[in-house]
């Protein structure tokens, strides 16, 4: 963590939107927007995720800090878009990025998905949000959008177990989309993600960025 991201971390944990904005603007004055995201936002969000995993901060702080970051990052990126000619617009890290999608399987509790989506967007990734889906609907969307990495959030054990059917169905696609799972059942059973055929598990939102990095490295 850099001093800047330490400051942002403190502002986010205190849900101090104004201080967070000030810190980002200070760094933005001498750096490109994507540098601000990489040097400040991403480390702060990863640290908050680590703290939640260790029991040192609460889910409400993870969610609210993610909301703040998503809002501030959108401001940064919209400035970039306004400053650039359309033909020269910097597409950011998305140019070579994988096609990402996220969904909740068989549940109306969307919090986990929203947190992870926020972390991804705050780190500059584009991610398609499929909302709540059943297995059939999710496979169809993944096939249609040619998704390369699918993030699946579940709340209840039966839905977590249903991921097995999902991964089996996705195996029929070529290339096979990789699947990252997360949610409460996986936090109480270390081996569940392997049992259901996932490629990785994220026990906190902060883990999702390193996991993406690992999957991309392995696939390249």
């Amino acid at each position: 963590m850099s001093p800047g991201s330490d400051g942002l971390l403190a502002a986010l944990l205190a849900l101090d939107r104004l201080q967070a904005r000030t810190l980002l603007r200070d760094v933005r004055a001498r750096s490109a927007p994507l540098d601000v995201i990489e040097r400040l936002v991403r480390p702060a969000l990863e640290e908050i995720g680590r703290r939640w995993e260790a029991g040192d901060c609460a889910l409400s702080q993870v969610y609210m800090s993610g909301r703040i970051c998503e809002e501030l990052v959108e401001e940064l990126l919209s400035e970039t878009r306004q400053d650039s000619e359309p033909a020269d617009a910097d597409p950011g890290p998305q140019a070579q990025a994988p096609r990402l999608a996220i969904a909740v399987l068989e549940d109306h509790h969307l919090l986990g998905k929203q947190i992870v989506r926020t972390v991804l967007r705050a780190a500059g990734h584009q991610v398609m949000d499929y909302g709540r889906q059943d297995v059939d609907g999710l496979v169809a969307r993944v096939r249609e959008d040619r998704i390369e990495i699918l993030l699946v959030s579940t709340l209840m054990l039966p839905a977590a177990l249903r991921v097995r059917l999902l991964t089996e169905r996705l195996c029929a696609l070529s290339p096979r989309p990789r699947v990252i799972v997360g949610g409460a059942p996986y936090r109480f059973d270390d081996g569940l993600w392997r049992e259901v055929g996932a490629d990785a598990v994220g026990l906190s939102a902060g883990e999702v960025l390193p996991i993406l990095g690992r999957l991309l490295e392995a696939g390249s």
Partner: protein
Amino acid sequence: MNGSTASHGDMTPMQRLLTSLGHQEPDRVPLFLLPVMQGARELGLSIADYFARPERVAEGQLRLRARYRHDCLYTFYYAALETEAWGGTVLYRDDGPPNAGVPVIRRPEDIDQLTAPRVEDSPALLRVLETTRLLAAEAGGEVPIVGVVMSPFSLPVIQMGFGPYLALMHEQPERFERLMRLNEEFCVAWGNAQVAAGANAICYFDPVSSSTIVPRERFLATGFEIARRTLARLQAPAAMHFASGRALKIVDLLPDTGAVAIGVSHHDDLGALKQVCRGRLSLLGNLNGISMRHWTPEQAEAEVKAAIAAAGRGGGFVLGDNHGEIPWQVPDEVLAAVSDAVERWGRYPLDWCRRD
């Protein structure tokens, strides 16, 4: 089938529980196994058909207690039940608890016009009350009947969705406060209706108050005060249950809520909780119901021993799972092994703990 099965020389389940809640050592550690949907399996019914008739749930609870010899009858149906009273829907499935449908509060502005439902107007709540009456008639005061309410602070997760609720809590304090007051009135009426029907204790499910969900300072300003106000108006002792959420960081505050016990997480250190709670607050927990799916009988025995060793001495401990509901996928053999292990290792004075 009678709900009371005390053998000669043993305490009844009610005596066992009350002794432990009084921070004395009963004949053995009380076991609150809390199987719920498993009653459908006992009766050969689908989960939807099982919960459709109150006498089926009563029969299921009695059969489960006869099978596993645990120390309570549990009138919990499923977490989404209360939202039916608020106008919500429930989605049944064959392999787990019914889930809540689309939230009943679509926008924060809806709270301005919201009114609390009356218990007597809700067919779903009336089914639970009938189950409670049937079980009370069978139990004859010898087996505790545990009713359930969702806390006013946690119910909005189902009423409006988790994310919108957290945003409301942090950004719209007046609407948040109005919703809490409505939910408190409903919670008290619902809890006391269960007591009037024969429930001896109320399990006050409040996962949002856990340190997994909100930090200690937020809990002090919200869930703590709400619990204190609500529990004071319930006409039976209450256990505050965090449904797998962590509680160690707030446990010093919990005796002041008025709760007599807390349901604690597998992710918490049971021994550390016991140190803080000894003589002040009883503990319920903290077997991991999710991993229970894979346990061998030997693992079940080891887990039961570990929990009893950490928290059993001196009473003030009830063994149970950490979530308040055993998953459908847990094999019957594992539940039987848990019960056998409590019988073998839960007999006071727990001399084996001292030897180990």
